[in-house]
């Protein structure tokens, strides 16, 4: 400015003048002039002229309202323009609005004040009013009261426009923000913060206090202020983003408890809950690639690449073709190509790359080329062992191939085949591993022409990214229909590729969670939504720590397991007991109930062959109704104007009350707006939902779409002891047919595949030597993979507690069976099941063909074993869905034997038992 006209000491003192200060204070101005006169000679005309003009302009604009804002501008030019300005227009040269936002905000505020205060009728009021606007901070109590006093009587307009500026809001719960005080890097601020937050003043005063107290203006860059912007509620309940709500991969999260070290467990949990983007590399390196974490790795692989039946159609790994009943994780053309590339790589580079180590190879086209090919194919196609679905190559194979084909002369001494194989293969030979022998030659399968017999229509995932593929059960061979259906689904996490169909209830972990607590959510058309927290479960032990969580053992003849502190056992009746010796009243039925057939209907919707058996299963007298679960609508339970349509279900927990077996349809309801839940009537006609059926006055036959390939007329008895109006009705209820005609008797329970009722004529088995079972309580044996599943009622009760009375469809037996059936990929197998009198779930996977071949029967048996393995290993697929999460163990019970299995060693006892059994059967 004027300083450019001066030199030397005069110039330096000129530069030190703060325009803003002297513009505000006239006295200071005079002082400054005196100071300057000391250093600057009167000869410097230009200088003095310039200075005087500036001072003139300054005094001219003294009463301008904007003067008080002059310290604010960032640029020198603008400040100068401000101090010499008389009105806003004088600023246009020096100040640019975009560059001086705070300054212009201040001017706006002053203008409002100027307008407001000009309404004052008395000078005192005007002064008090201006005081309010001058400061950028909140008006103090003193100032507020001044205005009220002075302006109350004669200037109501002033009071009106000042009201907004003097309004204050009381603050509550300021102590919740106390932790933010530590975030500041200034000591003064920290102290002031702690002091002010404990005072609980008004919000405005608190902010002022913090600003003046050393924390400065609130800026987003400052971590101290950022802390206040973040929501302050307790960590567990705040879910900000989609990633918080659903997690990164909530299906794989369930695997984290399988990690063998604490570090990996925590890393796993953090990675899959929220921090996948930053932690995946670390997690991969430290945990997934370590041999010791085999269980964790296996579990995670389960989610993306479950073990599925059958492999065929490969061009390189041809020894893997023609294996329709073996399990593989990724029998795909991509894996085939990858195996081919691997072998080429090894051949050309002559080295084998392992994690952290490169081994030089001899020429592998000369050294066991077949074995190397089998190794490459195994690593990419990943065959699963039958029971535990493990993937590692057995150690003996590893030792052989490394000792023979690695050029040990070039490897540092510290490595040897033993040390390297210790890293790659399981140490314990009892742990199931893959022996390469069966893959060194083409499949030794003797099944005649496989094509078309067994197919997996969903292989290779033909559906779009957000859709889930399910086998179309209603498509019979020869008919023109698609073998699979694509339905919309939800991903279980931002990076997850595991889908569940719409309408499924799932379990998602809570974010930031220490105790592995979960919540129930529903898969809706908008993704995972409608979440509610579940009561947290401690995976504690049972019986005063005698049995750990997850431990499986036997109590006499009953299989038991400890699950989260709950002891779950089957209720089989044992022939011999430790205390009483052989039980002379043994009838094979639970509680030694006599095998009389007087069916009763339980409140849970299940039918029991007699009241004795119902009570043995835990029902009380009030839970039982005599008569075989007949038409639930017979007593007209609905109000007038509503029609009753049956909606039968079996509630797995006795606490599930009421377990209504019908629906009341409003006569005036708009059926099109209700969800699509198809039902079938007795004339084999399908309706979109029960509402349409009711409005058309049809007679209900069964839930679900009308089925084909079954008889829809003629009573049959199901394996669960319930009489169905037709075969199709039984199949729609996931129940196999025991015999034709109404149910008349209950069969003895054994471990074999025998005909249990002498008076009943059973259908002949498709193959006499098939693997199968006689379902407990039924009369006739069936071919198919048979399982007995134990479930935890407490698990169900927890879900019930959260879901209350709405939406408890997921806690019925049918939901569980539906969810299990979804795991079956072979189109020619279907799943059936029922709740037995021994309080476990009997499940059978049968062939859908009328005359199944040996291969088809075998495939279904393998599918059942696969499901048993999923449940026994508590796979994430089982743990993620509410309907499956209560299943705790599965026992494979199918057998070839057609005679009773011998439990006692004495031949006499067998004879006695048999005569006794036969004796009871006499009518």
């Amino acid at each position: 400015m004027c300083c450019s006209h001066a030199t030397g000491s005069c110039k330096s003192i000129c530069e030190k003048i703060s325009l803003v200060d002297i513009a505000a204070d006239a006295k200071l101005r005079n002082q400054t002039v005196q100071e300057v006169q000391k250093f600057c000679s009167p000869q410097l005309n230009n200088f003095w002229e310039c200075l005087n003009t500036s001072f003139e302009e300054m005094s001219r604009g003294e009463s301008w309202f904007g003067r008080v804002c002059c310290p604010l501008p960032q640029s020198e030019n603008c400040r100068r323009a401000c101090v010499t300005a008389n009105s806003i227009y004088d600023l246009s040269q020096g100040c640019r609005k975009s560059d001086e936002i705070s300054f212009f905000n201040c001017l706006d505020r002053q203008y409002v004040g100027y307008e407001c205060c000009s309404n004052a009728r008395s000078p005192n009021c005007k002064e008090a009013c201006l005081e309010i606007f001058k400061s950028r901070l909140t008006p103090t109590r003193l100032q507020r009261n001044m205005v009220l006093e002075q302006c109350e009587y004669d200037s109501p307009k002033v009071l009106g426009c000042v009201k907004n500026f003097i309004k204050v809001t009381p603050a509550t719960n300021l102590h919740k923000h106390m932790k933010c005080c530590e975030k500041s890097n200034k000591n003064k601020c920290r102290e002031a913060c702690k002091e002010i937050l404990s005072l609980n003043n008004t919000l405005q005063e608190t902010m002022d206090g913090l600003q003046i107290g050393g924390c400065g203006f609130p800026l987003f860059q400052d971590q101290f202020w950022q802390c206040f912007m973040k929501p302050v509620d307790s960590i567990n309940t705040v879910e900000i983003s989609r990633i918080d709500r659903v997690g990164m991969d909530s299906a794989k999260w369930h695997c984290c408890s399988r990690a063998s070290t604490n570090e990996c467990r925590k890393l796993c949990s953090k990675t899959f809950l929220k921090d996948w983007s930053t932690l995946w590399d670390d997690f991969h390196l430290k945990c997934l690639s370590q041999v010791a974490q085999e269980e964790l790795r296996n579990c995670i692989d389960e989610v993306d690449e479950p073990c599925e039946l059958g492999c065929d159609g490969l061009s390189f790994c041809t020894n893997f073709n023609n294996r329709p009943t073996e399990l593989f994780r990724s029998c795909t053309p991509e894996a085939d190509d990858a195996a081919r590339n691997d072998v080429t790589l090894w051949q050309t580079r002559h080295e084998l790359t392992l994690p952290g180590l490169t081994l030089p190879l001899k020429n592998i086209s000369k050294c066991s080329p077949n074995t190397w090919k089998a190794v490459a194919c195994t690593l990419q196609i990943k065959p699963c062992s039958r029971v535990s679905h493990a993937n590692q190559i057995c150690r003996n194979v590893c030792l052989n191939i490394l000792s023979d084909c690695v050029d040990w002369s070039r490897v540092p001494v510290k490595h040897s085949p033993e040390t390297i194989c210790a890293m790659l293969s399981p140490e314990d030979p009892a742990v199931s591993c893959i022996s390469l022998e069966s893959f060194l030659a083409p499949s030794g399968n003797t099944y005649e022409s496989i094509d078309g017999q067994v197919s997996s229509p969903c292989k290779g995932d033909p559906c779009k990214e957000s859709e889930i593929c399910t086998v179309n059960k209603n498509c019979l061979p020869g008919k023109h229909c698609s073998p699979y259906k694509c339905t919309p689904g939800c991903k279980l996490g931002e990076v997850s590729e595991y889908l569940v169909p719409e309408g499924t209830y799932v379990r998602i972990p809570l974010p930031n969670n220490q105790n592995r607590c979960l919540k129930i959510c529903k898969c809706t058309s908008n993704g995972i939504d409608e979440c509610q927290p579940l009561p947290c479960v401690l995976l504690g032990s049972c019986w005063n720590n005698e049995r750990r969580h997850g431990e499986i053992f036997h109590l006499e003849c009953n299989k038991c397991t400890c699950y989260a502190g709950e002891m779950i056992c089957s209720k089989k009746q044992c022939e011999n007991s430790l205390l009483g010796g052989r039980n002379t009243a043994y009838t094979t039925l639970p509680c030694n109930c006599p095998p009389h057939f007087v069916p009763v209907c339980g409140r849970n919707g299940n039918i029991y062959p007699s009241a004795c058996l119902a009570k043995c299963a835990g029902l009380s007298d009030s839970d039982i109704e005599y008569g075989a679960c007949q038409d639930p609508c017979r007593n007209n339970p609905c109000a007038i104007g509503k029609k009753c349509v049956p909606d039968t279900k079996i509630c797995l927990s006795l606490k599930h009350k009421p377990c209504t077996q019908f629906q009341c349809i409003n006569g005036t309801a708009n059926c099109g707006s209700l969800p699509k839940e198809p039902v079938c009537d007795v004339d084999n006609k399908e309706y979109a939902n029960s509402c349409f059926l009711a409005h058309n006055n049809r007679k209900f036959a069964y839930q679900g779409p009308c089925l084909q390939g079954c008889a829809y007329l003629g009573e049959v008895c199901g394996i669960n002891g319930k009489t169905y109006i037709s075969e199709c009705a039984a199949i729609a209820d996931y129940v196999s047919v025991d015999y034709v005609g109404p149910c008349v008797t209950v069969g003895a329970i054994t471990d074999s595949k025998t005909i249990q009722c002498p008076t009943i004529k059973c259908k002949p088995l498709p193959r006499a030597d098939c693997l199968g079972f006689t379902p407990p309580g039924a009369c006739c044996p069936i071919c198919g993979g048979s399982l007995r599943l134990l479930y935890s009622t407490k698990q169900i009760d927890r879900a019930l507690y959260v879901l209350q009375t709405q939406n408890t469809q997921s806690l019925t037996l049918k939901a569980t069976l539906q969810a299990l059936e979804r795991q079956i990929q072979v189109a020619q197998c279907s799943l059936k099941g029922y709740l037995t009198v021994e309080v476990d779930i009997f499940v059978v996977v049968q062939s859908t063909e009328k005359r199944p071949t040996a291969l088809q029967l075998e495939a279904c048996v393998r599918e059942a074993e696969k499901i048993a393995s999923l449940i026994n290993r508590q796979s994430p697929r089982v743990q993620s869905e509410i309907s499956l999460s209560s299943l705790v163990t599965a026992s494979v019970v199918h057998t070839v034997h057609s005679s009773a299995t011998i439990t006692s060693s004495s031949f006499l006892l067998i004879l006695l038992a048999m005569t006794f059994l036969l004796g009871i059967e006499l009518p």
Partner: protein
Amino acid sequence: VVSGVLTLGAEVICARVPGLTAKQREMCRSSPDAMVAVGDGVRLATSECRHQFKFHRWNCTAISNPTSFGHVVIVGVVAGSREAAFTYAISSAGVAYALAAACAKGNISSCGCAPGPKVKEPAPSGWKWAGCSVDVGFAMRFARKFLDARELEGDERSLMNLHNNKAGRKAIKLNLSTECKCHGVSGSCTMKTCWKALPPFREIGDKLMKKYYRARPVALSQITTHVTRATKPKKHLVLKKGKIPIKRTPKKSDLVFLQTSPNYCERDLAAGSLGTIGRACNRTSRGIDGCDLMCCGRGYNTHQYTKTTQCRCQFVWCCSVNCDTCSERTEEYTCK
């Protein structure tokens, strides 16, 4: 002041942050979680700018201002200069970067991983696009809405700032790295899943420095659209050749500036230069950080002092570290 707001949270703070336009305050109130990321972005940009210009005469001390939110500060940078261009670009890039990073961590309610279909490029065989790709789209949109809301005038300075903001955002989008996870144990990595991730911010800083060296001078131009006389002539920037504007528009990813920078040697606050008095310089270097060029020929002061450090540290069982103190005489050079 809204009654009913009882907590010391976003509402109150957004009203008090200095230097925000009305539109920015509105965005602050509606997405406080995103504002935290914006703040992180500004911090990131500040430190990166300082790092890049550490040994230049203008060393980016201008960029952070404790009394106002906003990356543009007149003190210390000449408005419309190359340096201002860089300042705007790096700030815009920093904000977009921090927003994308916060999305991937689940810290912002309105974004997460990039919504599918994941990436527009087809994947080569054996690859799959999966995992959590950064939601660059959200980050860029939010950064644009927030930072561009500052430019109220629409004059040539505004156009320059908007252009440079965009160049900064583009630097993020074009420099995403591809991270992959291999499948299979064989170590050959022929099958993998890949996703787009953010590179280290240093890379973005380096790229923008290159753009800084190649920044183009521009001027304001008005075109009249031939369609109707009723349409107002639209202002836009055109490249200059020497002093003459030519008809070409600058590339979207280039930085542009309006006036040539001063040499930043002398202190001239009105013009925006802090000068180099007191800056540290390197006696042996012949580059811009050398004492000749840095001090603009004024000469330098040598300051000899004894530097004491901890040396020969040893770990003692258990569990302390014992160190000796070494001292040496060193020299430090500062410009006159």
